[in-house]
């Protein structure tokens, strides 16, 4: 039950974040909004790291630089998310984001890219993506 509440709250925060970013970017500009939300989030995160005396960042040198620099991709993610929410609302934006996310996950898993364990594509996964595409079409029809 507790896990379910956390997962639901996680979804709530993700949507809230999209909405807040879109609103802020409308007021002060896309890159200003992206830089501001990432910077303030970083400040909170680094305070948490200090508070729990987390020293695991010392093992960062064992991580491939490619993976360690993944955070920079947020610039692309935030720009597309904010612009898409402006143009077509948050429901449709999330729907299409989820489809792209899962299709990309299928590609990465079947190819075994980026040190992910290679997995065969499953019929249920294809059916799931088809259902989602149908949902998006109905949403916007």
């Amino acid at each position: 039950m507790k896990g379910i509440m956390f997962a639901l709250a996680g979804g709530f925060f993700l949507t809230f974040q999209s909405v807040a970013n879109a609103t802020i970017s409308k007021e002060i500009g896309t890159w200003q909004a992206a830089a501001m939300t990432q910077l303030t989030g970083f400040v909170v995160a680094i305070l948490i790291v200090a508070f729990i005396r987390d020293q695991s960042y010392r093992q960062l040198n064992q991580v491939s630089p490619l993976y360690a620099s993944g955070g920079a991709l947020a610039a692309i993610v935030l720009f597309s998310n904010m612009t898409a929410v402006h143009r077509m609302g948050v429901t449709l934006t999330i729907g299409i984001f989820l489809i792209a996310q899962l299709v990309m996950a299928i590609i990465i898993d079947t190819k075994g890219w980026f040190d992910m364990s290679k997995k065969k594509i499953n019929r249920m996964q294809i059916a799931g993506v088809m259902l989602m595409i149908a949902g998006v079409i109905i949403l916007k029809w």
Partner: protein
Amino acid sequence: MAIGILLALVGGAFVCLQNTFNANVKKRVSVWSTTALVLFLGFAASFAAGLAIEGAGLFKFQAEPWFWFSGILGVGVVACVTQGVQILGPSRAISLIMVSQIFFGLMWDTLGWFGLEQVPFTWQSLLGVVLISSGVLLFQLGPKLEQKRFMNVDTNTLKADK
């Protein structure tokens, strides 16, 4: 509209890419240190892009006070998602998170909170959201259901649970 769809497709693909990269960082570094690193790099990249595109104009803005607290939402995401995954396991947690995301999206469009343009509620949009949710559940939980039939044969497939 077409541009919105294209951007959402690109954005979603990059979310997955970023999650994959972050998962590799988390093999060595704790969740919060990873989060701090990811947000710092996100800031640096957005700042650099803004500077390249707008030059000094990047610094000309008038922020309402609450804008400065928006980053807390990202921390809420990490905290809840991490707890959810720990308790429920990745497939069940992620499917619930995605379903929750899309339903809150519909609620938000309907209510038009936080300066979002209000989109009137229709039963059709609810049907769309229900279909998207069913698709997510099928995607995340379907493979597990199929595997159950072979559970006694190959226990290794159960470990491949992501």
